[in-house]
């Protein structure tokens, strides 16, 4: 926020802040992601060595965080689009925000096992 602002918004402002933070995070991830994928042009061994680190429990947690960021940004992005283009969008923006959060929680629960399951097996044995 520009320094000194007195604006203290409500849900609308916080969803905007979260949309912005997640968007920036995803962009930085993508930059690194294209670099690591480029290793397939160096050698299979180098690529596999780097990808091996993605299978460790700590990085699995980061991947879960990335999924969280993308799911929120995608769902809330659709809400922003609906507010802009759907004639009743502005009237239902708040309901749509709660729907976004609801769907987000469901999808995050669904991603729990697929994304973190292998990490749990590494940590606690299978």
């Amino acid at each position, binding site marked *: 926020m*520009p320094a000194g602002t007195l604006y203290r918004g409500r849900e609308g402002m916080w969803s905007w802040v979260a949309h*912005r933070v997640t*968007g*920036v995070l*995803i*962009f930085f991830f*993508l*930059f690194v992601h*294209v*670099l690591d*994928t*480029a290793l*397939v*042009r160096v*050698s*299979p*061994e180098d*690529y*596999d060595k780097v*990808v091996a680190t*993605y*299978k460790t429990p700590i990085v*699995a947690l980061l*991947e879960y965080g990335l*999924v969280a960021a*993308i*799911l929120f940004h*995608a769902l809330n*992005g*659709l809400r*922003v*689009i609906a507010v*802009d*283009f759907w004639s009743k969008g502005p009237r239902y923006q708040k309901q749509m925000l709660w729907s976004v959060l609801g769907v987000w929680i469901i999808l995050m629960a669904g*991603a729990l096992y*697929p*994304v973190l*399951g*292998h990490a749990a097996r590494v940590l606690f044995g299978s």
Partner: protein
Amino acid sequence: MSTSEINLTGSSADAAEDAYTLSLDAPRSRTRTKKTPRSTRGNFEMAAWLFMRLSGIVLVVLVLGHLLIQLVLDGGVSKIGFAFVAGRWASPFWQVWDLAMLWLAMLHGANGLRTVINDYAERVNTRLWLKGLLYTATVFTILLGTLVIFTFDPNIR
């Protein structure tokens, strides 16, 4: 009010009425000088606004599909490796998928970051540097990613 002139009345100085006549310019029609930012940027901002929304809709399919394939289906991350990538990029369908995802996500993200820089970097020089850095990194990443998809060689070793 239909006039852009406001007469301050009620004063006892009828004789000097002219001295109390305030002339206000209509809003946003300040006199242009050399320092006035040019607003003749065409419809670029409008196009950028629309692009964010259209690319966003397409990215929902491309990116969420990508995450589903890479992190959820068929063993999640554990299956990823050179052989897996070779298998995927043997198909033009996934090459085009990844290419579209690369271009759209990078342009969408870069345009988003441009907005963020415009919002927070208040000094002209800071802005210029940050945007220079952003555009350089964006062009570099798009070119590198495109090159990697088109020159991928499964028999590199």
